[in-house]
């Protein structure tokens, strides 16, 4: 299986489309960095217009590398699923489209192994993509904007809240958040691979994955009580932004942040469990279908 995985990663590394994702992320991040370097205070004014009367803040210090990375992640982690779908959605259907699937399956490898290898290769691609994102969104931002305490703007119910995390308590939260994002994006990869099993061209699964993610995200953001209770808990999109939980710092009885704490560990654990369950479900169905599928391409 390791041999097969090496082959799969070699193929991914040789395809020009692989590098589209890296170039797209770099371009978007750098546009953000340029915009905030040029006129970040306008953004801060907009964010703080409801609370600036009773909150004193040095805005030039608030825009720092940590804060920039948080803003970028907030935006990019909605777009990255599309980039993951570009690779994972092509996994089986791309081989069928090229006509290589029938050649692959005449080799002494099991269909289950092949599908699992495709999944692990997509997972590795996702992790590498996130490492790339961390390098330019976090470390490059730290180099450009410097480091300081970080402010988090949070909508909690009908209230707005500002959380402050000291600069020596942030980096580990980013590593945890990127780890969480890797799991969340792996759900997208598993969904894409499942859809890929049914198709014989790459476009179908990629478009279908994006449509499903958009549709579920819209449903996840609807504030309708019956949907809140009966639908949202079962949609994986409700948990894609769960990485933010690592930045919701615990508050003591005096209203002061507790260094190294997280407000709701239980919610993060529950989110991760549901994401893993979705990965297992999508992969399980994909394997069951692929094992029995007649290869007619």
């Amino acid at each position, binding site marked *: 299986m390791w*041999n*097969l995985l090496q*082959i799969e990663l*070699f*193929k991914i590394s*040789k*395809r*020009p489309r692989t590098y589209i994702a890296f170039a797209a992320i770099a371009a978007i991040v750098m546009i953000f960095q340029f915009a905030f370097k040029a006129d970040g205070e306008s953004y801060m004014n907009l964010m703080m217009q409801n609370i600036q009367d009773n909150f004193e803040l040095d805005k030039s210090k608030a825009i720092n590398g940590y804060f920039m990375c948080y803003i970028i992640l907030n935006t990019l982690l909605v777009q990255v699923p599309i980039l993951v779908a570009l690779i994972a959605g092509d996994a089986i259907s791309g081989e069928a489209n*090229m*006509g*290589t699937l*029938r*050649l*692959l*399956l*005449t*080799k*002494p*490898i*099991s269909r289950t192994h092949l599908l699992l290898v495709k999944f692990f290769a997509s997972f590795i691609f996702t992790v590498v993509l996130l490492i790339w994102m961390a390098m330019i969104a976090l470390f490059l931002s730290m180099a450009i904007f410097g480091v300081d305490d970080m402010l988090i703007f949070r909508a909690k119910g009908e209230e707005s809240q500002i959380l402050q995390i000291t600069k020596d308590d942030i980096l580990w939260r980013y590593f945890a958040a990127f780890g969480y994002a890797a799991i969340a994006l792996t759900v997208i990869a598993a969904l894409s691979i499942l859809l890929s099993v049914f198709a014989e061209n790459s476009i179908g699964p990629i478009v279908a994955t994006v449509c499903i993610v958009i549709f579920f995200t819209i449903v996840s953001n609807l504030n309708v009580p019956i949907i809140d209770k009966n639908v949202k808990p079962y949609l994986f999109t409700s948990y894609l932004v769960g990485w933010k939980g690592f930045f919701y710092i615990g508050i003591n009885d005096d209203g002061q942040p507790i260094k190294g704490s997280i407000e709701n560990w239980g919610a993060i654990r529950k989110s991760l469990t549901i994401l893993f369950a979705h990965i297992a479900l999508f992969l399980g169905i994909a394997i069951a279908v692929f094992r*029995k599928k*007649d*290869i*007619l391409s």
Partner: protein
Amino acid sequence: MNKILEINHLSKKYKDINAVDDLSFSVNSGDVYGFLGQNGAGKSTTIRMMLTLIEPTSGDINIFGKPLNKNRHEILSKIGAVIERPDLYKYLTAYENLKLFAKMSNVNVTHKLLMDQLDMVGLADRSKSKVKTYSQGMKQRLGIGIALVHNPDLIILDEPTNGLDPQGIADIRHLILKLSTEMGKTVVVSSHLLSEIELIANRMIVIHKGKKIVEGFVKDLLDPSKTLVEIETTDNEFAKSVLKNSAFATMVVDNNDKLHLTINKIEISSLIKFMVDTNVQIIAVTPRHSLEDYFLNLTKTA
């Protein structure tokens, strides 16, 4: 003879269509076995079932004396196959494609092995070119190189000459004959062209609408004593009357604007001489095997 491949009562049904219908045949060690049928006869479906790409509706496939469904991994490691077009990774070079598939076949890959293989199929000098720059014939040869890289005992080629120019067809034919005569491989080769099979196979099967029509040794099925000759003249009525008073009389059949005779192949020159001597103005005399005619009759009724 040691049976390498045995197929018993194999069927594949898609809804109401029987793509393969109760098909049975066997291939012996060392055979070049021709698998003949029109397009859509069920050849590719049968071959795909032999390679586990399609699951049979019913029936058994035994290869190397073992049931395929229970020994897939072991059996496939001893088979090399090219199915229809040899589609490969176009963004990789020939060398990279070969290396990748050799690794999948659990071969101890060395540079020498890969270059020898590319040399055998005449692609050593283009080993570093991306496959997207290859002609159809070169892709076909690379596909065969990939099929052979793990030194398989059984080679299955599905329509290997499709889309090739005459030189490409001749190259593939010579390669198949080399595999059989020099390397002692067993080859199953499908085609819709009897003339192709006739030139390379020692045994063959003809299938139509998923069913076996005939199976046997090529030399028996293409019996020269039953060669069908098609005659076209400037005056077929005159030719017919002349031939009816000759030694060929009992064999003459009038078929639209042509005359058909079934005679021994060695008598064709005598027939032509007789017609010339009796002033029959010949336009064409075309010998065809009786099996080919039979095959074409099936096509007409399909």
